[in-house]
């Protein structure tokens, strides 16, 4: 079965947020709604500090808790490519998905009274374009594709400090971590 997912290169991300804003633009998200979010994680002590960034959108998990717990089946996994889709018509805005996702990905849209999330820019992908976040990255730190192919190319790490264990939902995500 096909499963699309993301690759994220932590070693080259500069935390600039171009992905986050491109995502906001594509989804017309208002202030307060972020389908993709960049996290900063400082570590170490002066004069040996470190700074890591993590750009996190939906991981289109193999076993998505949001889908499992959605009472109206508004969230579902698309058969052909494993994308976790959200059917707005069925969404009752109960926020169960917000509480279920260990990555904190689904967002609640106050103005609509409904949830919303990353759909991997299916409309753009259908036209042969990249998802907005991927095409936005100035450091080329984000990639999209068949997750198995991405794992072959970049390794299968999906666990880094600060992220929930990948064993919970089996995210379609692989991460290039820093060597240190």
């Amino acid at each position, binding site marked *: 079965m096909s499963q699309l997912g993301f690759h994220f290169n932590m070693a*080259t991300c500069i935390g600039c*947020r171009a992905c*986050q804003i491109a995502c*906001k*633009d594509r989804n*017309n998200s208002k*202030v307060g709604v972020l389908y993709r979010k960049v996290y900063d994680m400082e570590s170490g002590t*002066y004069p040996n500090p470190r*700074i890591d960034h993590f750009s996190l959108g939906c991981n289109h998990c193999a076993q998505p808790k949001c889908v499992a717990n959605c009472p109206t089946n508004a969230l579902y996994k698309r058969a052909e490519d494993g994308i976790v889709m959200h059917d707005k018509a069925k969404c009752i805005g109960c926020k169960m998905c917000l509480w279920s996702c260990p990555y904190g990905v689904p967002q609640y849209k106050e103005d609509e009274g409904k949830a919303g999330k990353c759909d991997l820019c299916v409309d753009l992908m259908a036209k042969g374009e990249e998802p907005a976040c991927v*095409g936005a990255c100035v450091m080329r730190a984000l990639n999209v594709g068949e997750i198995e192919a991405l794992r072959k190319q970049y390794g299968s790490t999906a666990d880094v400090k600060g992220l929930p264990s990948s064993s919970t939902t089996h995210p379609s995500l692989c991460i290039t971590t820093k060597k240190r």
Partner: protein
Amino acid sequence: MIKFIEKIQNHMISRRSFLGMSAGAIAAVSLTGCGLTKVATKQAEEIAKTEGQWLTAACWHNCGGRCLNKAYVVDGVVVRQKTDDTHPDTPDYIQQRGCARGRSQRHQVFGVDRIKYPMKRKHWEPGGGKKELRGKDEWVRISWDEALDTVAGEIKRIREKYGSNSILVTGGSEMPRTLGLYGGHSTHWGTTSWGTWRWGPSKFGMEDGYTEHSINDRLDLRNSELVVIWGGNPAWSAGGSPMYHYLQAKKAGAKFIIIDPIYTDTSETLEAQWVPIYPGTDHAMALGMAYTLVTEDNPALNPLIDWDFLNRCTVGFDAAHVPPGADPKENLKDYILGTYDGVPKTPEWAAEICGVEPETIRDIARKIGKTKRVALFTAWAAARTNNSDSWPQMFMSVGAMTGHMGQPGQMTGVSCHFATGNGGPYLVKPGGNGLPVIKNPVTDRINDNEMWETILTGKYTAGYNMKKDINIQLIYHGYNAVLQTRSAMNKGIDAHRKVEFVVSHSHFLTTNSKYADIILPATTEWEREGGFSNGNREMLIHYTRITQPLFEAKHDQWMAIEIGKRLGLKAEDIYPLSEKQQIFNQLAGATVIKEDGSGMEKLVTITAGDIAAMGVAGNPQQGRITLQEFREKGIYQVERKPGDKYGHIAYEKFRQNPEANKLKTESGKLEIHSKGLSDLIKNYGFTEIRPIPTYNRAIEGYEDTFKDWDNKIKGEYPLQIINPHYFRRSHSIFDNIPQLREVYPNPVFLSTKDAKERGIKSGDTVLVKSRHGKVLRTASVTERLMPGVVGLPHGAWAEIDEKTGIDKAGADNILTGPIATGQGTAGWNTCIGEVEKYNGETLIPDVKWPQRII
């Protein structure tokens, strides 16, 4: 003070009216810019299903990048933006990808806080009218006729009463044309972003890093084994591709050393050796390195100095090589060794000043001296410091001593802004717009550091031992942000409240406009005929109109003409060419590097039909691409690959034969002894320097944080405050965009040590003060900052609480002082202050602040 509660209510009304207008009155409206309701979201979905058109949109801000920005216009509405996808992306032939700011452009153009109509300060009347209310008065909408009549009337009245030089034009190219024909006007000048790289370097043989470059191109950078970045954080400060270029050098094997008070994302990503240093003390460290090189060099056993390069290509390093007529004692080597002043500039001497361990100073000197191919880079920030006129010369001297110039992988110079890691002449560029120059008959030019005090005191420095009287009574703000972006803003506000008239062309209620009497709403580049953006040397962007002018906004050129007509001038004298003709001229004159690299040739093929369609005068021509292709793609980019003919090795010919390829200095060589430089600095009339690069301690620099330097007892202002560029803004532009405020909260960065000593934790509201002003910000406590240094991001729009006089936005220039040194240097990174926990009301996040809607 503007009544913000009322303004929030107005905000809601504005949203509705904006929506109402999207039905027909406006050609293109951004959906999210309107603050859409549920109904509108449905509209948005419907519109999104309709086929639209991608247009190339301007991204015209001074961020250090120039990226391809595209707007998707559906049925007259901008629904989405994207960046470069005009060709497949590779590190060699790279897409010109934009940043979070550029991708928020539609929220700027269609922001609900745009100035929509000409506005007048309620209590203004000819002569000023309650001038003290500037910045806190209410605003009244007026007609264009009233606005133009008022502005023209005040120009005429004030010129007649006080003379032409009583009118100070702060920027914009438009009104200087009108006023140039109407007796002239005073101007201001300063080193702005460059710091002391602005004018001095041409005297000693290096380039300023913007108009010309002393570094090699980006593909050659991959030949460097060691890249030293002395102050410079392209990850935050140079939009577009520079960080990606640096990453390619890293992948090719280069090691990085970054000397900077902040552990930046540039340091992290490049896995650099981070060397924290006190701001404004770089010169001392360089001297300590030079001492190491001089004392440890052994041509046979331990060659660290490139004597061949020094002897052939420079003057002034040692007594044997001072320029003719100069005192042989005045040479760098003897200064380093302390031969005549008794102070050897040892790494220990340097360490006391710069805070870098002596062993680290030695280590870096040795690495630079021993490594074959080194790129020695600096950005302008280290030179945006008081009394630093000799710093660029010292930086050059380290490069010259180690011979890292003029060869593959070896380079020394400024690497920032457009040319970060990518030096060389433009490979593609637009032509001129053909507008004739209009001369300004008034010669009064006021240095930025003195500008506000001059208005208050009536005196300015006009040269060595030369003060002049002047009585500024009209401040004309064209396209600029000087009240926000020049030092000593509190004095600036006082100055604005002193003069008889202030007018501002504006998109928003910026700081310039807030303290004005009349605001004239200007169109953005998206509402104009189109234009060109060139940034890095490899590409040229041609953007087009995205929408018709919003509300009553007008082109600055139109304003200049209309005001001119009211002053009795002829429109055709001010602007003899239409906007379209100006664009045509730039198109017709655009050139691109020939395929064999031998020179430039025409870029655009223009047909008689194109000329007729544009309604302009011109001749058909043959070029590389058709006009249609250029417009549709919106960009022409020269494809680069290793070994191509478009590379650049700075100083290559000079190094090979300095006698045949003289530099434009007095001696024709790199001048480690430069009388031209010391004369230049003296003639500005502020402070003086020697012909050799001696260390000069900065006013309000590190040493001034002590009341007793010898015993290291700190004074009233123990911290150094610097102004890192911040991704929320390009200088002051974009500060008002809600989605950028959400992403970038604009805190003040404090080191863990300093915060702890003051009982401050992240999230606390803190008062940051200098002898020049006070600001509030939310603290962000970090291990990434050198203790003793505070990072207050550059460019936040001042929001002064009239009761306390404290700026709640954290505007950097509230804290900087009116200090003019050397070449009239903008010394913003030398500022000393103190931080304390604030006992008043806690700041709410900027994103929750009401927008400035009038």
